[in-house]
């Protein structure tokens, strides 16, 4: 892990995300250019870039999600944009780390880049194609933060489905158990880990929706695991 990233993560771990002012580089843009080969099958970047399978990535920093006219985004990405998801160093880092944890129904079929340094490098590369990225890389809004930095312990919690069933009654006022997806996304039969990551992303306000930030904000790790276990295993009988 390079100096910048290490510094950022250390600062965040201590809850001192404002303390990154002295940082000079996001990562190594040259290494990032090599990693870009994984992206360029679908995305273009640079002077002649156009939308292909994915949207072009010029000027991505500071742009609202799903904001390029004429590109057909997934419903899920449009919803995230409407909810106020803006691409910053922090949100892009989370997205590249695990696209579906940030935007559940994204069409970007990319498993995610798990290596912290590689993401920092790739972001450094992308940043070179954003004309005037606000506050990069000095200030807090663009500081790298890992997608909810979940320890293996948290991910290993096995939820109590009985408790999950009780807690789920708070969810089903809006999210229908049968998986209907009209105005409000379905949460039925999500893989447990995706569910856990998504709830923690709301809890840490990485995902933008205010109702979900509020709902997830008061769920404990055990409660999130319980809900994940319950919704992950929900059958049609309910």
């Amino acid at each position, binding site marked *: 892990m390079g100096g910048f990233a290490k510094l950022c993560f250390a600062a965040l771990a201590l809850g001192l995300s404002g303390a990154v002012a002295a940082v000079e580089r996001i990562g190594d843009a040259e290494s990032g250019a090599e990693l870009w080969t994984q992206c360029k099958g679908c995305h273009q970047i640079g002077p002649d870039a156009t939308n292909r399978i994915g949207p072009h990535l010029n000027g991505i920093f500071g742009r609202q999600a799903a904001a390029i006219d004429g590109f057909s985004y997934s419903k899920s990405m449009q919803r995230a944009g409407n909810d106020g998801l803006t691409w910053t160093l922090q949100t892009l880092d989370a997205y590249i780390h695990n696209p579906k944890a940030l935007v559940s129904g994204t069409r970007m079929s990319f498993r995610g880049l798990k290596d912290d340094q590689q993401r920092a490098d790739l972001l450094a590369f992308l940043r070179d194609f954003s004309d005037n990225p606000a506050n990069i890389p000095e200030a807090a809004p663009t500081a790298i933060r890992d997608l909810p930095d979940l320890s293996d312990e948290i991910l290993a919690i096995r939820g109590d489905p009985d408790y999950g069933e009780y807690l789920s009654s*708070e969810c089903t006022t809006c999210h229908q158990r*049968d998986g209907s997806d009209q105005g*409000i996304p379905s949460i039925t039969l999500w893989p447990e880990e995706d569910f856990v990551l998504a709830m923690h992303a709301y809890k840490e306000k990485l995902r933008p929706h*205010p109702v979900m930030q509020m709902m997830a904000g008061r769920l404990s790790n055990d409660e999130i695991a319980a809900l994940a276990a319950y919704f992950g295993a929900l059958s049609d009988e309910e």
Partner: protein
Amino acid sequence: MKLNRRRFIGTASAATLAAPTVWGAGHGMPKVVVIGGGAGGATAARYLAKDSDGAIDVSLVEPSRSYYTCFFSNLYIGGFREIGSIAHSYGTLAADYGVNVVHDWAVGIDRDAKTVTLAGGAVLPYDRLILSPGIDFVDGAVPGWDISAQNKMPHAYKAGSQTELLKAQIEAMPEGGTFAMIAPPNPYRCPPGPYERVSMVAHLLKQINPTAKIIVADPKEKFSKQALFQEGWGKHYDGMIDWIGPDFGGGTVEVNPDEMTVSIDGEVTNVDVCNVIPAMKAGRICEIAGITDGNWAPVSGHTMQSRMDENIHVLGDATNQGDMPKSGFSANSQAKVAAMAVRGALTGAKVFPAKFTNTCWSLIDTDDGVKVGASYQATDEKIAKVDGFISQTGEDAALRKATFEESVGWYAGITADMFG
């Protein structure tokens, strides 16, 4: 089998006692009677039946066969919903969940004998009683108006025929006519409701009668989502809506349903439609049960049990519980806590700490939705607000549209959660 045994016992006691059929609770399966089939009562009945897997005998007493939700009834007035789309039956609760749905009025409660008497004469015993009767109006709250004037000056604050009547009257207004609303004092059902209604009336009039005027006489200094509504009224219905707060006499009103006049601070105005929304109190059955203090029924937030009788739980608009607004969402949320507490008490099921949520969406104009919401927890004193949010003024059109679409999704979600 169950029915046969009951019928046998029933016949025997009727013969010996020559009195209404009563068999003491405590025999066999525990009995829960739920009065009121709205967001609180229907949800409680469904969760009790669903989660107890047949271990609790659940009866739901509700006079209407078709239940019209108050939430989204304003959207019918605005032309965004058909009336049939906000009507729901109890068929699934009865057929799929085994709830004994009784279409009758509850007219008496004997707390010592633990029985409910229905208008039709039947007597239902209970181990636990859940009251979710909604609201009634305070007599004499608006001088000149009482419930007998509701056809001339509809309240439309219990959805259904009143809502249809109000809309028909608005559609029949003369060109350039006047619609008046007498808004209620706090606390009342659905805090943003009157103002969403004003928005929907304006939306309708803008299309069919654009020179018509809307007057709102309001006894409150402030109202729910005020900045959002007033921004929206200026944007969509400029000059059409005149909101008269208490500083300008909005709290000093008198109506005359025969003359169709409204007097605001002594100034008499002829109106074409007058929507009177009087001050409210808990549904009358709460008074009959003797569990009210003032206009409302005080409850514990941990279990929604009445502060006056631990065998009675009260839900929704009728309660005095603390910080939650009187809304369908709140009642639905409270119902789940009550159902859990009742199952815990009657069958020993696991009980978890009470949590509550509410969100109220309102529609201002086409694709212009806003929301306010909060989460709550139970303290010994009350249901206390934990955290909340509200839509902001100046939000872009895409977010407002998404908020409206979310409300449509919520409607489908909560009605499925209530009625199965």
